[in-house]
């Protein structure tokens, strides 16, 4: 699908991050259908920030979202989210951990008017499909699994949003011989399907680059950078929007807090306010 050209800026629909203080600084959210890289080192709440956006979209706008976890198991992820206070009873929750039964699983959601969160536990699938002959032969095998899964959900019940957790894990599963070319086609695949996508990028501890190959920064439409900032013995999380196409962005660094079941971005500069 070709990207639509708008005639006035109000026509650009946006997906909020549901982070108070941040959405106001990006014209209300990320443009629909855009691909955003969520970058950060371990412990910066990358997964939670992504989940927060897709959860509220499902609850408030009855959207369908796919959370693709390549390493963290479904129970571990769910326990984490429930512990954060997300009420999953407000949406349909579907787990995909068997590649041979997807059509049946998706049919459960077809008639529902509630929003849906679909969790694909690829770690579990990896353990289950040891016998599948193609899983280990082709470099592109796992990328095809992700593409086919996304396409299937989009075709069967419609798919609005997705989170890929994480790109770094995908690179371990699939060897990219020509990353620039192969990533270009993956990004174009997501754009063609018109799905708002969050791709999680695990940064090295020295935060020397946003992504593994460097090209992801250029290929994506938006880049949100999460980091930990230490001042004496206190550590705070910080968030900044490095780039977001078609958006007037305040690129300042905000402190990121999760309080009362809500994310908040606060003005506080790079150092924690003591």
């Amino acid at each position, binding site marked *: 699908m070709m990207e639509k050209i708008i005639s006035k800026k109000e026509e650009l629909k946006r997906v909020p991050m549901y982070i108070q203080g941040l959405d106001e600084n990006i014209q209300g959210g990320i443009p629909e259908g855009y691909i955003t890289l969520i970058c950060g080192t371990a412990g910066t709440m990358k997964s939670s920030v992504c989940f927060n956006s897709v959860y509220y979209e499902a609850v408030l706008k009855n959207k369908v979202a796919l959370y693709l976890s390549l390493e963290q198991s479904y129970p571990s992820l769910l326990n984490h989210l429930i512990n954060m206070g997300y009420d999953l009873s407000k949406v349909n929750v579907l787990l995909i951990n068997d590649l041979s039964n997807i059509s049946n699983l998706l049919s459960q959601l077809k008639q529902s008017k509630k929003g849906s969160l679909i969790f694909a536990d690829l770690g579990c699938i990896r353990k289950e499909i040891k016998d*599948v002959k193609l899983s280990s032969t082709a470099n592109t095998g796992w990328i095809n699994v992700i593409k*086919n899964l996304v396409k299937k959900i989009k075709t069967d019940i419609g798919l609005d949003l997705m989170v890929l957790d994480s790109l770094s894990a995908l690179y371990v599963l699939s060897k990219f011989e020509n990353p620039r070319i192969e990533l270009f086609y993956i990004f174009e695949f997501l754009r063609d399907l018109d799905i708002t996508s969050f791709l999680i990028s695990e940064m090295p501890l020295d935060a020397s680059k946003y992504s593994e190959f460097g090209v992801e920064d250029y290929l994506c439409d938006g880049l949100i950078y999460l980091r930990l900032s230490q001042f004496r013995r206190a550590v705070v999380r910080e968030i900044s929007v490095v780039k977001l196409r078609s958006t007037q962005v305040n690129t300042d660094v905000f402190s990121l807090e999760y309080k009362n079941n809500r994310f908040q971005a606060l003005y506080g500069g790079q150092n924690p306010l003591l």
Partner: protein
Amino acid sequence: MNKITFAFKNMLQQKTGRLEERWKYDSGTFLLSSPVIEDIDNDGKKEIIFGTKNGKILSIDIDGNLKWAFSAEDNTSEAELMFLDTESSNSINSSPNIEDLNFDGKKEIVFGTEAGKLYVLDNKGKLLWQYQADGAIRGAPIVQKFAGKQAGIIFGSSDKNLYFLNAQGKLIWRYPCKSEIESCPALIITTTPLIVFGDNEGTIYALTLKGDLVWKFETKGKILAQPSFQTLTKDSGPVIVIGSTDGNLYCLTEKGSLIWDFHTNGAICGKATIIDLNKDGNMEIVFGSCDNCIYALDNTGKKLWSYETDFWVVASPIVTDIDNDGKLEIIAGSYDHNIYVLDSEGSYMLDYVPGVSGIIGQTGQYGDAITKEPGKTQGKKIWQYQTEGIVVGCAYVQNNIIVNTDSGKINNIMHKSDG
């Protein structure tokens, strides 16, 4: 003086007629390779056979009507299907080969797929047998007949092996290479028959029919083109001519020594056509390059002329007399969506053509003359026809050009004289 005479002769002997579409067939999917034209069912009429990106072999008659279709679908489980690129997992990337493989008087169709299966169909599109390789089969398989009603099928695979099967689909041997094989091999009949092919690391191999290495030749790019084998002059031995994605066309002896190479500024992906263009008893070489040009070289590798299209020329050019005037023309398809028919001799641009400079200097005047370098022979376009997609290959039969485009449309273009 000779050149001046030739230039004026060329100016006066303008070709007449035009290219017209006779019919168009929509395959409904993408196409990646040239069609093959053969009378496969011995009914006296030719059929057009081609493969599609969604894994089908179609046979259409010479008037553009579907005769039969064969679908190369796998019995793959839902879980296995998830690991495949469903849009191209059964893709047929190269032209089928048509031969009477089992010597029963009927032709068989041999082709490979991205899923690594080699299929052999009868002349009505019914599966005779299939063979599973360990990787994709992207180059066309070749069929070679031997004495004593024996035949072999030779093909390369992305599993880095060159396979040799007998006519019943039994593996006779396979030869491991350094990298994936996407080129189509060629069998070279010399004192010792040789199988010549290239791999993705740019090595050209020559093997015996038993699969023993005879020689290797290194280039600096992938080998996607099929080698051509021909004697270029009356006084010389046969040579192997093969292009590489390093941009060079290599001319090798049958022992693998370099005779000459010719550099272009783009990858050479198609087989070079070797033919006596000017009927002087010596062969010329015609090929396309991804520097957008169609080239004609003499037998020493010297450029006779080139013609620049607007995009890559990947498919092999066809040399034939399309307008029955006794002279050969060159038919070449380009990624710029056009089919070009070129004069095989090119045209000589004079250093100074009386009156031309005055005309082309005037506002609103435009012609071929200002795009040509004076004092050199240039490729000369006679006709051009715009198709609906990238031209991935073409074939020729009885004044008809059959053009396959990536968009899935097959055009039958015909030369019509003005009278």
